[in-house]
């Protein structure tokens, strides 16, 4: 815990001008603290450097220990990195596409979201949770089964759609699946699904994709064609809270996979319920790309999807 850092400075109180030497030990303690929280080293080092730059030459406020000064500087650095520049009001954005204002001269069309990420991180499950959220908001959702590779992927989505349809009787909305079995090209299926949704008055298309390693050049390069044909309004990458240092490269490689002028629109950080207070992946992925976290997966049920509460995350990271 952060107690270690405090121990080094128990007797220093206010009114001292901080030097690099003063804080070196504490900064190392802070770095170790972040590493323990599963923040990738690259991100931890950068955060500590920015805090250090801010602190050197600063006078600690009276009666404030150096510990408190460092902690609050790190707290604000973490909030700053995790707080998105613009907040995503997904429902509003969907609305503006499915029922455009008369002034906009746009034709109504379905809003398209695709979900990407490495193997087993929770793409299909969190897609289903997102679907549940949209049903609660009374939308007509088409789920497109564009993972045509992994055994059982299509049946998995069929089960989710069956369950969600049952829930929609209570929650409202409507849901259907678009699937063409296995072996077909994912980009073509996605494109066809969007066409089908347009013709049949769906509000939202949720496209599931196969898991792929970010270091698999062939599978990664097929994402470019996918983005072209499916032309999604949003591409969300699912990153897993359990993942360590690899999260940095996962985020970077996926962010760069969709061709010039197209990047990720947000992260869904899944399995947050499996890591306790070690929520460092949030920081690592945002640090790597500047792309915001839009949702957190917090369990295996449809209601286990949350928006990111920055205060909550910072509290866990500083605990």
């Amino acid at each position, binding site marked *: 815990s952060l107690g270690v850092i405090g121990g080094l400075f128990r007797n220093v109180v206010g009114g001292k001008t901080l030097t690099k030497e003063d804080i070196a030990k504490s900064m190392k303690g802070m770095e*170790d603290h972040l*590493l*323990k*929280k*599963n923040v*990738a*080293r*690259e991100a931890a080092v950068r955060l500590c450097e920015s805090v250090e730059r801010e602190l050197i030459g600063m006078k600690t406020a009276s009666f404030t220990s150096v510990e408190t000064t460092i902690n609050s500087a790190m707290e604000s650095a973490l909030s700053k990195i995790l707080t998105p520049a613009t907040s995503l009001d997904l429902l509003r954005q969907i609305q503006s596409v499915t029922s455009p204002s008369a002034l906009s001269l746009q034709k109504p069309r379905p809003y398209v979201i695709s979900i990407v990420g*490495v*193997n*087993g*991180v*929770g793409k*299909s*499950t969190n897609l*289903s949770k997102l679907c549940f959220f949209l049903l609660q908001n009374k939308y007509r959702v088409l789920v497109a089964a564009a993972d045509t*590779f*992994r*055994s*059982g*992927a*299509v*049946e*998995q*989505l*069929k*089960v*989710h759609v069956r*369950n969600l349809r049952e829930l929609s009787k209570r929650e409202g909305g409507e849901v259907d699946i678009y699937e063409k079995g296995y072996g077909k090209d994912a980009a073509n299926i996605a494109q066809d699904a969007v066409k089908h949704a347009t013709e049949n008055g769906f509000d939202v298309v949720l496209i599931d994709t196969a898991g792929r*390693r*970010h*270091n*698999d050049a062939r599978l990664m390069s097929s994402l470019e064609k996918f983005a072209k044909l499916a032309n999604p309004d949003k591409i969300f990458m699912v990153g*897993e809270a*359990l*993942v*360590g*240092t*690899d*999260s940095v*490269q996962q985020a970077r490689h996926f962010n760069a996979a969709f061709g010039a002028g197209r990047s990720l629109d947000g992260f869904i950080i899944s*399995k947050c*319920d*499996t*890591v*306790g207070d*070690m929520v*460092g*992946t949030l920081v690592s992925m945002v640090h790597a790309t500047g792309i915001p976290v839009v949702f957190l997966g917090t369990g*295996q049920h449809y209601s286990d999807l949350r928006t990111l509460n920055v205060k909550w995350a910072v509290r866990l990271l500083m605990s």
Partner: protein
Amino acid sequence: MVLQDLGRRINAAVSDLTRSSNLDEKAFDAMVKEICNALVEADVNIKLVASLRTAIKRKVNFKELAPGVNKKRVIQKAVYDELVELVNPHDKAFTPKKGKPNVIMFVGLQGSGKTTSCTKLARWYQARGFKSCLVCADTFRAGAFDQLKQNATKAKIPYYGSLTQTDPVAVAREGVDKFKKERFEVIIVDTSGRHRQEADLFNEMVQIQEAVKPDDTIMVLDASIGQQAEAQSRAFKDSAGFGSIIITKTDGAAAGGGAISAVAATRTPIVFIGTGEHMLDLERFQPQAFISKLLGMGDMAGLVEH
């Protein structure tokens, strides 16, 4: 691939130091620091890294090194010994025997690669003359039975599961009993993903285990797991007492230090590694080769016997 970069970095750090003409304490500290950074970036547990740092420093005891000793050799040996200690499972893995049923149960976190690895392992033993089969005791995850069924069908391996039975304990027991009667030799039981924060899921795992009495329980770990590896694997060990580890997705870019930490925390050997999404992407794991790889072989290999 897993561990190669880590091995390269550790080796480079050691040989940079031992090659330098000016082998002073500052350079030694820098080497220890570089090794520790490499381990941290590979996702080795932070506390393990800290204790490794202390152990190397204590063993070498730079200040007290007598002028006559071969400093280079002392340092190399200390680094090597500590790394070996880190990954030494202190335990031998279970191997199935022909002519009797060998029940193997898979456990692990959500999405780690259990179902995929189950089929790979069944096929592995089938190819080596064992009469092998699969039991799907995952009644929770959507499409879990379809996934196992499709994999098993592709690999031509008999399977058991149910689309209607919702109690995983019952399905597991039925499947294992059935295959035991039919004199199968390797009976692999797939279970749902779970995590230590949910006690009910852990209880369920223990109940399945009591029902099928596995000869070996295998924990499946994703090579990319970070700092939670230790706590999760320790919790699985405490509840399920697994005897082997399979590391999956080693074809990814992750360095696999989480897996090392799991071995260190549970003193359990890694038996196989998954190297891809296809049926044949499974390799037997040799701890000794692992350590050599970790250390990039080099002249340290000569220090193995001591």
